[in-house]
């Protein structure tokens, strides 16, 4: 059973903001989904082995050589207000 308190905690971990009036509805929806997910506990596992990945590939390396990367100006194109080749946000630390 997922509670409103759980929703607040999960939202914080997920970097999401949940309005107070939405908490109970979300808790109900999530409880239903978790109850549905709980059916996996009825399954008997074949072995203790962890699943190793679906790709069936091990160590997909490429050559350790320097290649051209993306142009910095292109990378900054999707964010207005870039300065000196950097992304700009508000000051993180206040003046003390």
């Amino acid at each position: 059973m997922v509670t409103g308190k759980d929703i607040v905690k999960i939202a914080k971990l997920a970097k999401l903001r949940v309005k107070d009036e939405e908490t109970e509805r979300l808790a109900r929806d999530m409880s239903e989904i978790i109850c549905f997910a709980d059916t996996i506990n009825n399954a008997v596992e074949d072995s203790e082995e962890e699943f190793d990945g679906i790709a069936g590939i091990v160590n997909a390396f490429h050559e350790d050589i320097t290649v051209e990367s993306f142009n910095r100006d292109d990378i900054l194109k999707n964010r207005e207000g870039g300065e000196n080749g950097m992304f700009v946000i508000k000051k993180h630390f206040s003046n003390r």
Partner: protein
Amino acid sequence: MSDIKYIQNLLGTKQLSCVELTRKYLNAIEKENKLLNAYVKITDQEALRTAEQVDDRISRGEKLMPLEGIPMSLKDNIVTKDIETTCCSRMLKGFVPIYDATVWDVLKKQNAVLLGKTNMDEFAMGSSCETSCFGGALNPHNTKHVAGGSSGGAASSVSGNIAVYGLGSDTGGSVRQPASFCGLVGMKPTYGAVSRYGLIAYASSLDQVGLIASDVEDAAIIYDSIALYDPKDATSRGAGTTSSDKLDKSIKGMRIGIAREYFDGIDGDIQKSIENAVKVYEDSGAEIVYFSLPQIKYVLPVYYIIACAEASSNLGRYDGIRYGYRTESYSDIDDMICRTRSEGFGEEVKKRIMLGTYVLSAGYYDAYYKKAQKLRGSIVKAFRDAFGLCDVMLAPTVPTTAFELNFTSRDPVETYLTDICTVSANIAGLPALSIPCGFDSKGLPVGMQLIGNSFEDYKVLNAAYQYEQQMKEKIYKKLERGVRI
């Protein structure tokens, strides 16, 4: 003759120029898209520029590449350089990629004529296209019904004859289900057969680029062009072999496996259409093998736990710093990130991120995520064993035909249950194709699914083609809208 080959014949013999053909499609889109909402962006300038290049090559007597000059669509989670790509989310409105997805790069080099980017459920999370920030795409067979999801726009564009084929993405059935709803062929290749470089990630161990086409031969032609090894995708292997040259192989003696559990709770009309399809295979000399696959009852919870867990990680990148939506007013960086994500994502996306965060969090990781991964291993093994008994498996694609509009207003678990037939192919990384097999009592298309063993995509296409050759007149309905060549 397949649509692609027919059109290329018209172009090659100069009965029609590529520019004329492209204008026909663009005019049809202008007329039909107001209702169908299949496209969220129309790339008319790009399309006509490419069409001119194709006509130029034809005038010089050069041979056409397999998909050259064919008007097509791309789902809006496949990045296209200098063309806005949004995943139909407020979070990425205005985002213009600086590179092309590999699948688009391959098709661009073949002068594929890109008509536009198609509608989808936000970040590919949904089964009806209705979570799109642009509103849902409608089903051209009956516009009171959804086109399906998440690749609803792609299916609507092909079914509405406003694209010859479309590329979509399939994480839990998002190409096959809309193809089934719209009376088309939809294929999810083996995991690793098609590059995911440039496919905006939802759940990386489940995502695959898929295709939607009007018939199996077209599907095979498209598959052969896109199923290539890509060093930029660490999970890429390519197809290993071509498929379109193997369509004609006889299926006499082919073992078609039917797992009983796929048929629990499906509509009577769908049951009947699939039984008819089984008879067609039997009459063609295929051997029908019935067996039980009890692990199927766990595929849905396993899928939603793993998919949401991976999504919670993948969508962590959307923080408003480097690209995408950023909230207008905030007090500090943490506030900025939280407000950006809460305002930028829709309800279903936020729900799935929270579910994924929950199953990965301390105290729940072992009970949900770790357990789901172990069960995934059991499911993979069960399918591997099943392919010791058969060559391809046959199952319904969806337990129902196309939902009526406002599907997402139902309770969350009810909407997830409709994925029961499709998710197992994603969990096990197997190739799977949906092909129409009839119509229900309301005239809506019914789809059946063929699932193959890993990297045996050519067998799936072969089995689908042989069925289609016998049933073509009965399973396809070309609609009186869009472009009729």
